[in-house]
């Protein structure tokens, strides 16, 4: 006794066979099968073990609502776990394995855990690991002891370690009308909107359009429903203004009528051409959305309702109608509503023996009775299933049942069956509507949550709205499509549907209370008793219930468990279900591959910024480092050199003769207009209106709260024309800061800001011989002290390229910054380089640049860290007292001028060992037991000028500690050593060299 392929029927291609493996065994199926239908066709009923209790589980549903049959798909070395077998299209070479079993699916040690069942009830973790259990066995330590075993025993599939070689891509799409679901309602909605000439996107999560038409056995307009659906789909797909996406799941509804969807492009095409993505992620921006997402069937909760062979009635209809699979030989139906009678009739027609129809209702309508007759069995009215038996279902037991009181009576009768199909009524798939906002509305007659009133621009159609028949679906679909394009509902007659007129109202029976585990959430192993336990322990709100029991939190998002779980809680609380309410549905509706969310982007998601001289650096042995988005030379290493040897050589060469460094990355902002000087006076702490043309000045900006923000030099190129430079890291933020003030605070100022960072290439030439280098290549201007004094600016040419030269210094040496158009960057750099060769010019990188600035005590990002004030950095001299500026009102608040603030000092290592930035400074203690921190190291290097390891630090009290001793403490790097706190102006404090 087992499921098998029916002799006829289904939309599969029986002429072709496809080989696949499950748990290493070979099977065959047909094109058009899912893994689930093919397994059933091969007689496989046991496909997995449950999450918590390792109970045997089989295929329960036929679509995205499948809670049980999760498998791992194997593709070369890549493992993709937790995929419902109902959503895997069969293809040649498909290899899948079952999950959560050891050593095999059939013989599973973990199932012994069932014996400990009562211990694993809801709240197990809280109770066991947070409260006292047995003496010392509790709390975090106990958890750490048990964690490995629990994680091994509980759970879903195991992820692999191999990198995923598949391609993923992303699409943005726009349309007037997006129709979600291509069943009868969705198809007619899309047709109405498309015929009105609008741009329509129609998406369907299944490989086939048609929805219920594929298996209902009904006729539409005199044709078999599936032929009607196929013909209409083909007509729609051929239209120029409609895009039909199958295998595409709308999984999230976001603001602005944006719907996220996942298209499974080539999972079913094992030999897809190179470049075809595996999944494609769609962000669809829709004018109107028509939700025609159908309905999901609810189970009835009864003891043993999880046994392989227990299936949803609608799913069974689909297996017969769409896949030609008979899910058993001896079948029973258990229901609280009419729809399951369709399944009974279909089972009989496909060649199965319907042994019993068990209906909780004392009476049934004549249409249902007629279907029962077709099935060849007299329904057992006023009865319920109270138990099941067999690792694979072999027996059910039934008992007389009173639907009004929920009471069981009379003898328990066993019935031999191998498949039990269950229906507890239908719930609209309102997930997307709920995500879009609003509370779902409980309908007491249909016993289902209906969609909320729209908070976004959507319309509903078909079973999504609670419609029970195909005729209603066709009418509501067409009207929704017309309404979406601003038209009135049509008076024309919709296509006629031939189907039995059944009653859509189920009896209010959600659970049969009898002895044994009755599961509400099959995937997370939450039982009806767990829900009542949560109630007894006070977790009565739906939000608490969900978190305490994990009801509905599995990968299926509780598609089958939501309504029964809420009904059981409502009963326990003595409230109507509508008052208990439901939790808000959250994206995703179905699991989404991470690859699709990432799309084409791998590694880091930022652009790489390269300076115009980048290739030169690389060709000349630079080791590059990332500074923000920029790639900059760290050192230009010579063979056999360490990093320290390289930067020390470079820095020493600058002090001895001359060096050249790429400064193109500095932020550059053109500030132009009649109010430019006034603007700069307001944003800088010092004054720029007094700066003469052709001169540059150092400037400091504060934030509004008085904390130091950024520094740099600004050059006055003309009366109304300034070039501002910022630090590399802050270029974007400074631009935004300035734009904010210009747009919002001072809209009356007549200036314009342009970011010109990328337009200029810059090189700094520094060292005692810097002027000689310039003299060797600059034409059109003199560069002597008279023509180009400190902070002076001249315009000239270098080998025919116009350049702007400013004499300013970060290194403390005689130095010039030379700027030219970015396209000439490399040429100018190489010309400067050639001119420097007679003086032994060296290129230097970030490490040497840092060393030179530490020796001089210049601050940089490590000191302007968003916490320090100008006074902390001893930059008081740039704080103008003559004018307000951004930050001036708040910079002298009590806490910001406290004596004990961390202030800038220099450090000298006294033990000849390196200092490390990040290390703390303490006054006492040792490596293992450092004293309290009085500050920290911000930057450190070996100083060739001082022949010592030195650093900059922020230390409590700052200057007052000059000449005192302390220790650096860096327990993580095992460093503890004596230092002297000194002035941060280590080298040439008078600045003589600068003016050389």
């Amino acid at each position, binding site marked *: 006794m087992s499921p098998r392929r029916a002799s006829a029927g289904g939309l599969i291609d029986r002429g072709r066979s496809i080989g696949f493996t499950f748990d290493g065994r070979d099977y065959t199926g047909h094109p058009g099968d899912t893994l689930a239908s093919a397994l059933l066709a091969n007689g496989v009923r046991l496909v997995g073990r449950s999450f918590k209790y390792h109970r045997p589980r089989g295929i329960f549903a036929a679509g995205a609502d499948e809670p049980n049959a999760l498998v791992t798909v194997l593709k070369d070395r890549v493992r993709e776990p937790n995929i419902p077998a109902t959503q895997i299209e069969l293809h040649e070479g498909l290899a899948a394995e079952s999950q959560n079993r050891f050593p095999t699916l059939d013989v599973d040690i973990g199932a012994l855990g069932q014996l400990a069942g009562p211990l694993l009830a809801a709240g197990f973790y809280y109770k066991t690991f947070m409260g006292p259990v047995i003496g010392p066995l509790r709390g975090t330590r106990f958890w750490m002891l048990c964690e490995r075993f629990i994680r091994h025993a509980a759970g879903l599939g195991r992820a692999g370690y191999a990198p995923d070689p598949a391609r993923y891509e992303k699409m943005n799409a726009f349309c007037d009308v997006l129709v979600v679901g291509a069943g009868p309602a969705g198809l007619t909605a899309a047709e109405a909107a498309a015929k009105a000439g609008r741009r329509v996107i129609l998406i369907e999560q299944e490989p086939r359009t048609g929805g219920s038409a594929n298996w209902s056995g009904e006729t539409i307009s005199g044709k078999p429903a599936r032929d009607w659906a196929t013909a209409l789909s083909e007509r729609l797909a051929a239209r120029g203004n409609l895009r039909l996406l199958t295998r595409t799941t709308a999984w999230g509804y976001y603001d602005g009528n944006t719907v996220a969807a996942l298209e499974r492009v080539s999972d079913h095409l094992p030999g897809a051409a190179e470049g075809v993505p595996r999944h494609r992620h769609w962000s669809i*921006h829709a004018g109107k959305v028509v939700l025609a997402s159908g309905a999901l069937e609810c189970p009835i909760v009864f003891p043993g309702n999880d046994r392989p062979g227990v299936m949803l009635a609608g799913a069974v209809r689909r297996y017969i109608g769409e896949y030609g699979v008979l899910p058993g030989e001896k079948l029973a139906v258990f229901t609280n509503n009419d729809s399951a009678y369709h399944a009974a009739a279909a089972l009989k027609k496909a060649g199965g023996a319907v042994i019993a129809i068990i209906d909780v209702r004392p009476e049934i309508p004549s249409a249902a009775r007629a279907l029962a007759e077709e099935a060849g069995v007299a329904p057992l009215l006023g009865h319920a299933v109270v138990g099941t038996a067999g690792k694979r279902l072999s027996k059910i037991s039934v008992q007389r049942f009173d639907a009004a009181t929920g009471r069981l009576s009379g003898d328990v009768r066993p019935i031999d069956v191998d498949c039990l199909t269950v229906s507890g009524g239908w719930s609209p798939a309102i997930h997307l509507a709920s995500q879009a906002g609003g509370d779902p509305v409980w309908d007491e007659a249909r016993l289902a949550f209906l969609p909320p009133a729209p908070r976004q621009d959507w319309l509903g159609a078909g079973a999504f709205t609670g419609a029970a028949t195909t005729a209603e679906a066709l009418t509501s679909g067409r009207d929704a499509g017309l309404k979406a394009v601003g038209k009135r509902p049509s008076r024309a007659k919709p296509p006629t549907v031939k189907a039995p007129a059944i009653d859509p109202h189920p009896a209010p029976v959600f659970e049969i209370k009898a002895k044994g585990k009755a599961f509400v959430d099959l995937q997370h192993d939450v039982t009806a008793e767990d829900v009542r336990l949560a109630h007894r322990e006070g977790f009565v709100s739906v939000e608490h219930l969900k978190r305490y029991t994990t009801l509905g939190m599995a990968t299926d998002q509780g598609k089958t468990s939501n309504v029964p779980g809420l009904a059981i809680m409502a009963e326990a609380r003595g409230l109507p279900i509508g008052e208990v309410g439901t939790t808000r549905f959250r994206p995703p509706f179905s699991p989404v591959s991470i690859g699709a969310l990432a799309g084409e982007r791998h590694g880091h998601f930022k652009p790489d910024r390269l300076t115009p001289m980048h290739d030169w650096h690389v060709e000349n042995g630079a080791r590059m480092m990332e500074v923000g988005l920029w790639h900059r030379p760290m050192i230009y290493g010579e063979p056999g050199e360490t990093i320290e040897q390289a930067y020390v050589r470079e820095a020493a060469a600058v002090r001895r003769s001359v060096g050249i460094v790429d400064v193109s990355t500095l932020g550059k902002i053109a500030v132009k207009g009649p109010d430019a000087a006034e603007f700069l006076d307001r944003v800088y702490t010092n004054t720029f209106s007094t700066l003469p043309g052709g001169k540059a000045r150092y400037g400091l900006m504060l934030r509004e709260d008085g904390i130091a923000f950024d520094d740099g030099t600004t050059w006055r190129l003309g009366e109304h024309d300034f070039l501002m430079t910022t630090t590399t890291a802050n270029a974007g933020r400074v631009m935004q800061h300035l734009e904010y003030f210009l747009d919002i605070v001072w809209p009356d100022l007549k200036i314009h800001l342009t970011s010109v960072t990328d337009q200029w290439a810059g090189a700094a030439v520094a060292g005692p011989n810097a002027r000689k280098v310039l003299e060797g290549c600059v034409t059109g201007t003199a560069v002597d002290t008279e023509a180009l004094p400190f902070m002076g600016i001249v315009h000239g040419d270098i080998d025919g390229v116009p350049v702007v030269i400013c004499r300013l210094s970060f290194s403390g040496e005689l130095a010039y910054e030379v700027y030219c158009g970015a396209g000439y960057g490399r040429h100018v750099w190489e010309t400067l380089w050639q001119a420097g060769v007679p003086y032994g010019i060296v290129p230097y990188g970030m490490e040497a640049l840092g060393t030179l600035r530490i020796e001089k005590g210049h601050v940089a990002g490590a000191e302007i860290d968003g916490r320090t004030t100008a006074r902390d950095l001893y930059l008081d001299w740039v704080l103008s007292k003559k004018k*307000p500026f951004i930050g001036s009102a708040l910079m002298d608040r009590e806490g910001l001028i406290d004596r004990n603030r961390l202030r800038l000092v220099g450090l000298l290592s006294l033990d000849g060992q390196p200092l490390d930035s990040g290390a703390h400074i303490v006054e006492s203690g040792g490596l293992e037991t450092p004293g309290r921190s009085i500050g920290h190291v911000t930057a450190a290097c070996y100083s060739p000028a001082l022949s010592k390891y030195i650093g900059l630090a922020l230390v409590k009290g700052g200057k007052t500690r000059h000449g005192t001793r302390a220790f650096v403490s860096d327990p993580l790097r095992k460093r503890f050593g004596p230092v002297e706190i000194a002035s941060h102006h280590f080298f040439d404090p008078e600045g003589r060299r600068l003016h050389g």
Partner: protein
Amino acid sequence: MLIPCPHCGTREMSEFSYQGDATRTRPDPASADMKAWYDYLYNRPNPAGPHREYWQHTGGCRTHLLLTRDTITHEILSVAFARAGLNAAGGRP
């Protein structure tokens, strides 16, 4: 969330940067009224409902926009350039 930029058209939120509450006013720069400065800098209402706020179209025209946005539904009730002069000139400075 989509923001209708009066210069560039309707664009995805990720092109914009939130630039804060538009209901605050900056005290006179020379003011020493600490309470006014604290209100300007730190004290923010957190309304559930319509809220006036600045958004900069950093990935587009870079102008600052003044939006009235419902913080519950993310519905944008009004949008204009923050610089009043730009509105009158139809976006041309």
